[in-house]
């Protein structure tokens, strides 16, 4: 797959000034956030990558800059190729342009990133929470959000946890 991907990578490197990296057979391109819409347009129309497999984000840590890494994963069903594109997002201004105009399934994927990470997407038609309740404070998948772990009841702390639990009695 690497050989067939070469002309595509060369084309994208020249057009968008991208860096290529590879780990265990997965090829990734790193570009800056303002070029993402035109890259998606080019991938879909000229290069034949018509399927946006997934869109996800990684929180690199509270003190790191850039804080988030957003990964777009494209697949070409005609040529049987896959390519990942990484974009850096900083913590102070976590916004990206939306790609819902190019790939329609980005609508919910971007809502999910807003809900779980707090990354805003400009131009999104309907940016609201998708998996958490509407009044949930915070963004769960960030590293500074707690897991919400509840202490298990063993025999030595059974009564004290029992008295704290809000049972519904009627």
């Amino acid at each position, binding site marked *: 797959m690497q050989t067939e991907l070469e002309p595509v990578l060369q084309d994208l490197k020249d057009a968008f000034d991208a860096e290529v990296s590879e780990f265990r057979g997965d090829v990734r391109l790193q570009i800056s956030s303002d070029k993402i819409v035109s890259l998606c347009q080019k991938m879909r129309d000229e290069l034949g990558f018509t399927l946006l497999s997934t869109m996800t984000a990684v929180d690199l840590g509270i003190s790191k800059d850039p804080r988030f890494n957003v990964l777009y994963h494209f697949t070409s069903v005609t040529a049987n190729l896959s390519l990942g594109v990484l974009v850096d997002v900083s913590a102070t201004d976590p916004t990206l342009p939306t790609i819902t105009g190019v790939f329609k399934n980005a609508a919910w994927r971007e809502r999910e990133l807003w809900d779980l990470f707090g990354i805003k997407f400009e131009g999104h038609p309907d940016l609201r929470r998708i998996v958490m309740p509407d009044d949930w404070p915070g963004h769960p998948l960030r590293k500074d959000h707690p897991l919400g772990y509840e202490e*298990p009841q063993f025999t030595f702390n059974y009564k004290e946890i029992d008295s704290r639990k809000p*049972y*519904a009695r009627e």
Partner: protein
Amino acid sequence: MGVEEKLGNLGVVTTTLESVMNWSRTRAMWPMLFGLACCAIEMMAAEGAHYDMSRFGMELMRPSPRQSDLMIVAGRVSRKMAPVLRRLYDQMPDPKWVIAMGDCASCGGVFNNYAIVPGVDEVVPVDVYIAGCPPRPEALIHGILVLYDKVNQQKIKLSAEMVR
């Protein structure tokens, strides 16, 4: 009703009102269709032909809470779903029972995080807990029989109901 054997073929049966009431409640208890996640599949398998639940009176599952007696909470209850669960429980007419099926409904199960209510007894009062992830259909049927035992021991609380 042991009086028949003593008095022979009299054509009269005597018993207590409680026994008749409890007997009729257990023989036709209709569960509400409340399958949330994986336990729902085992609940459906328990309803299938192999482990038949209709021999215990649960011939059909009513999706409407107004027409059911028993709510089998089968699956994990997330924070977004908890108020919906409470509203459905409130819509059920008395007498009503709740079975917490599976580990996630009983105590939060494998998941110990922000998104799952750890035990559905924080939202509705539970009568029987069934362990398992997911519990086998036989375990569900055992839980239902335990619930029938519990119902058969209920007494009529006339004074409290009439006062209300």
